[in-house]
């Protein structure tokens, strides 16, 4: 029946349009989510910053929410987050990149079959388990300290750095390496002086992702870092100072949010806003790195 056929076609046509709309709205959810997250954090955090004063909040050196009058300076936590991230990067990146070189250029095939899933597993282990490991294996040696947090975070960013650096190294055309060999360079010279620079943008992306992970990490850091809000001047003399505790932005939120009220609570949400802005800035840089990689 031709008439029914046309009806059918119209029906399926409208279904096509309907489903297209459904898929489109699914795609729009991620945009909506980013907007909502920014909106809610800013709307709840900015008034607190306004009451404390932006300068007092960002550059104040004492965090004493229970004193009268209370002081809400998060500079110690900003310094703490940066310091711990820096430490994690300086431990995790050299070891990670060298391991990636090993995986891409030196690893025997049989070993690779075990090593690759093992690294993936390292990436999948929850941060609480890292925290428990840190409490039992790192804290007894180094104490609840900056150095413990750096070591643990360095370990946690290893799989990220290794995975991304390895795929960047593998994307380098083989002729680069072979050409270097033909010019008389040794194996490692060819790898570190030719292949690694060629993979630079990928390795940079790995480092940036590692920074993001280290700065945002919460549970593992809380469990090993001691969590005292402290200024850099307390960290001298250098080797001894690094064995003192420190508090990061993330730790500040989790530890006090449970019992905070009023201005204290707003200050903690504002801490989250600062953290979010940190990450958004890093993401902008990361987007740049990726775009450069494409060109």
């Amino acid at each position, binding site marked *: 029946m031709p008439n029914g056929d046309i009806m059918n076609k119209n029906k399926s046509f409208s279904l096509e349009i309907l489903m297209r709309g459904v898929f489109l709205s699914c795609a729009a959810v*991620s945009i909506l989510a980013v907007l909502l997250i920014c909106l809610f*954090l800013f709307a709840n955090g900015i008034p607190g910053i306004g009451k404390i004063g932006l300068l007092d909040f960002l550059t104040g050196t004492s965090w004493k929410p229970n004193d009268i009058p209370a002081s809400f300076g998060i500079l110690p936590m900003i310094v703490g987050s940066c310091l711990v991230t820096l430490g994690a990067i300086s431990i995790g990146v050299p070891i990670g990149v060298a391991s990636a070189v090993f995986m891409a250029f030196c690893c025997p095939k049989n070993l690779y079959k075990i090593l690759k*899933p093992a690294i993936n597993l390292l990436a999948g282990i929850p941060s609480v388990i890292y925290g428990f490991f840190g409490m039992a294996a790192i804290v007894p040696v180094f104490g609840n300290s900056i150095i413990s947090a750096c070591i643990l975070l360095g370990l946690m960013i290893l799989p990220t750095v290794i995975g991304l650096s390895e795929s960047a190294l593998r994307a380098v055309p083989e002729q680069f390496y072979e050409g270097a060999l033909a010019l008389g360079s040794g194996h490692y010279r060819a790898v570190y002086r030719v292949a690694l620079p060629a993979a630079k943008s990928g390795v940079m992306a790995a480092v940036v992702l590692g920074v993001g992970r280290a700065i945002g990490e919460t549970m593992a850091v809380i469990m090993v870092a001691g969590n005292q809000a402290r200024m850099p001047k307390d960290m001298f003399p250098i080797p001894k100072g690094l064995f003192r505790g420190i508090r990061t932005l993330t730790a500040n939120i989790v530890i006090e949010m449970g019992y905070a009220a009023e201005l204290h609570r707003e200050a903690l949400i504002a801490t989250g806003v600062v953290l979010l802005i940190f990450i958004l800035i*890093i993401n902008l840089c990361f*987007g740049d790195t990726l775009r450069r990689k494409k060109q």
Partner: protein
Amino acid sequence: MNIKKMKPTELIMHVLTWGAAILTICALIYLIGFILLKGLPYLKPSLFSLTYNSDNVSLMPALISTVFMTFLSLLIAAPLGIGAAIYLAEYVRREGRFVTFVRMMSETLAGIPSIVYGLFGMLFFVNALRWGYSLIAGAFTLSIMILPLLMRSTEEALKSVPDVWREGSFGLGAGKLRTVFKVVLPAASPGILAGIILAVGRVVGETAALIFTSGTVAQVPSSALKSARTLSVHMYVLSGEGLHMGEGYATAVVLLVVVVAINALSASLAKKIGAGDK
């Protein structure tokens, strides 16, 4: 390669490279060994009794809550993530402006730390929507968190389906929708599934986003609007109390087993895709 014939600089780099790799492997073995060593002695039957009290420190309610939490957040996030990926991969020009923008947003989502998700979940789902500390508030928070992962992996899986298949389907008179559901999605399903399993791994391991959204009540929740703690949160609370560290490590062992199983499953699926390509 003969080590004895190497130049000194080559030898140094050789030692450093192998050293780094060995250090990585040792760290992993040490980590897993330590958790097993500390946790296995405490892995007793009482740890698996149905109700939690401070004598048995049972992890069973937390385990059940973890399963609920995983199902709920996947129920919310998987259709959204797959739908979004279908739109990006099948309906619009692949490098168009909208795709770039959505991808930028999902990359931003992927970079946001879990504690920020936790704060947002607390402000939006718990307070603004008045759901209170509940399973459902936690699940919604987590579903936003795993959305970029699901979108990314599904999009990759869809892209790996050859265009010839789509053209063949169109040629046989199928519409767009039928092509997507009957041809493209089945072919991409192992890749999509691998992504979903990775997302399960993230849900199971998450702590910071859940403490202030689903709360820390240690019993099996009677409804989705009740507070509940997952295994990871359970471990964190135990470490904070400091009284039952042994049981904490035993919980870590269970969690580790779950994570290893998830990883193995995802890897075997990924291998299936690799085999399909050849």
